[in-house]
């Protein structure tokens, strides 16, 4: 394969960075209040300079929209990176973080919290419950797969735990089916939303997500070697158990924290690595993880911003980001399956 020229790499990186910037600028101007880009920039500059701005602009642009945009970037990047790591770990382009059951575990804990009114105790209650659910799921995954090192077993255990956590949510919802407010809250949360998230949510999410993103990038070498097969990777010094543990912790951090903060946003981890490969290579294949992972972060961030902005532009029709990504992801999955079958 002919190596790519540095110029082309630079053009790709620049193009993606530009796309992200445009998406961010659009996201800041779309929504109630009809703020122009100039007003947005002036408000942000004044806020950053410690000056006083109109209370309405402060509330909408500074307290809500800016953290929302930043959170969308961070969550999109995280889910994209988690997807790249998961596909690399399982050496399967159809794998996604969802197969490990982490977001489903988080959802089950949150639905339990809704059922018992815990979400109303404090703003942090739902994110903490979701994080606990994600950690519990990760713990169960490790506990159940500790004796067997192979990836197929990890995958199947994840699928089983995913189903179990999903069933737990369903049972809880069935028990409290008559409480329409609970059903409404649970449904809204399970479709994901950036509504009402502020700097506090951003600050809670930043550290674990940034740590997860750094962790994801650090796995690029062993993931590249793993492409050659588990046995070969082992002979080249990749410790399967360590890689598996590291990848699961990274995916757990990225997906668990994202889910804890904004709810369940599915299929991003599946779509994004493919979009990143397609953007960077003509064949859409053969991209080293050292490039695939950061590219997935950028593409994920841009996709999430675009989805959230589109949803807000369609207001008052409520289009939850998770619902939209699932719709896109489902179609993409079918297309991918068909393509893989043809290639195979």
């Amino acid at each position, binding site marked *: 394969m002919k190596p790519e020229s540095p110029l082309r790499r630079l053009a790709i990186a620049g193009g993606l960075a530009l796309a992200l910037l445009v998406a961010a600028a659009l996201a800041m101007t779309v929504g*109630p209040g009809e703020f122009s880009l100039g007003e947005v920039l002036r408000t942000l500059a004044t806020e950053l300079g410690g000056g006083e701005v109109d209370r309405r602009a402060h509330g909408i642009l500074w307290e809500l929209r800016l953290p929302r945009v930043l959170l969308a970037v961070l969550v999109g990047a995280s889910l994209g990176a988690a997807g790249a790591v998961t596909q690399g770990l399982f050496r399967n382009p159809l794998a996604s973080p969802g197969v490990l059951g982490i977001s489903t575990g988080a959802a089950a804990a949150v639905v339990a919290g809704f059922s018992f009114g815990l979400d*109303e105790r404090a703003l942090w209650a739902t994110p903490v419950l979701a994080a606990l659910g994600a950690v519990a799921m990760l713990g169960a995954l490790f506990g159940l797969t500790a004796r067997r090192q192979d990836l197929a077993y990890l995958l199947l255990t994840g699928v089983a735990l995913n189903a179990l956590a999903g069933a737990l949510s369903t049972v809880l919802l069935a028990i409290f089916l008559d*409480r329409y407010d609970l059903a409404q809250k649970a449904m*809204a949360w399970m479709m994901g939303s950036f509504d*009402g998230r502020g700097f506090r949510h951003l600050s809670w999410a930043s550290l674990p997500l940034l740590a997860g993103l750094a962790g994801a990038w650090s796995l690029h070498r062993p993931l590249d070697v793993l492409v050659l097969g588990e046995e070969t990777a082992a002979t080249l010094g990749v410790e399967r158990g360590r890689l598996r543990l590291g990848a699961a912790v990274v995916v757990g951090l990225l997906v668990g924290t994202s889910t804890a903060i904004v709810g369940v946003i599915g299929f991003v981890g599946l779509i994004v690595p493919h979009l990143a490969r397609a953007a960077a290579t003509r064949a859409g294949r053969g991209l080293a993880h050292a490039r695939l992972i950061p590219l997935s972060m950028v593409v994920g961030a841009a996709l999430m911003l675009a989805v959230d902005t589109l949803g807000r532009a369609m207001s008052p029709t*409520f289009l939850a980001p998770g619902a939209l990504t699932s719709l896109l992801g489902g179609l993409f999955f079918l297309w991918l399956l068909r393509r893989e079958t043809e290639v195979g």
Partner: protein
Amino acid sequence: MVAIGCGGGSNSPSKAESAGGGKSSTTVAASERRVASRVVLADELLWALGPEVHGRVVGLSPMADDARYSAVAEQWPEATPRLGRNPEELLAIAPDLVIVASFSDAEYRAAIDGKVEVLVLDGFDGFDDFRANLQTIGEAVGAVEAAGEVREAFDARVAKIEARRPSLAEGEARPTIASWQSGYLAGLDTTFDDAAEAAGFRNVATKAGHLRVDAEQLLSWAPEWLVIGCGERACDEAVAALDEAPGIRTLEAVREGRVIAIEAPYLGSVGEGMLELAERLQAPLRASAQQGAKADEASPR
């Protein structure tokens, strides 16, 4: 709109008309019917119709005793069965009439269709719907007089609330209000809209129904008063939590203490609880108006 039906067919407009006229195809006289309820509003209205009707109620909705939704929680005798989602429970008690809502499960309704006479209530959007539902149930259970008394009391209470609205100066608009919780706003043609109107407010919403509205939109409307549900918390905790809510805490209503926290079940009530809601909305408005008037008097001219 109300529909009533018995037999194999579904509820049709003609049957709805027959219900409106207080007639039905059943051989049991309306005043002797054994009645079951599958909707909280019917639990409340059957209770309001008095002891004679109470004795003929053989089943209640599953939420009859849930104080978050029912204004008659724990008032009905324990011996009266609370009917779950299994239609067999209803068929086992063999009532002459069952009252359901248009939003009740289609499967449930299909399962009992033709086996028991069904009264379908369809309209839960404010005072007029309450009056219509009251009249319909009164006719269906042969308690027209009692229903008339309940309605008179209801109308008198509405009139009393409306008479207590703070007076407005010429050209002065009513203060704006928004009821917002879990990302949903109570729009026009809702129970909240009627209660707010009776209390002396103007709903900020411009569209009908319950609308998904995010925090940014609410901030752009900047209602002068904000109404929230207390949920599972104490109301003062619910109000205090707004100080932590990004963006929302910057609303003038929140900063200046013009937040009205309403306990369940009044915010969601489609029965007489709507008037309790109106009174709870009006109390702080009147207090604020009186305070304003005192301040005006005290200020130098």
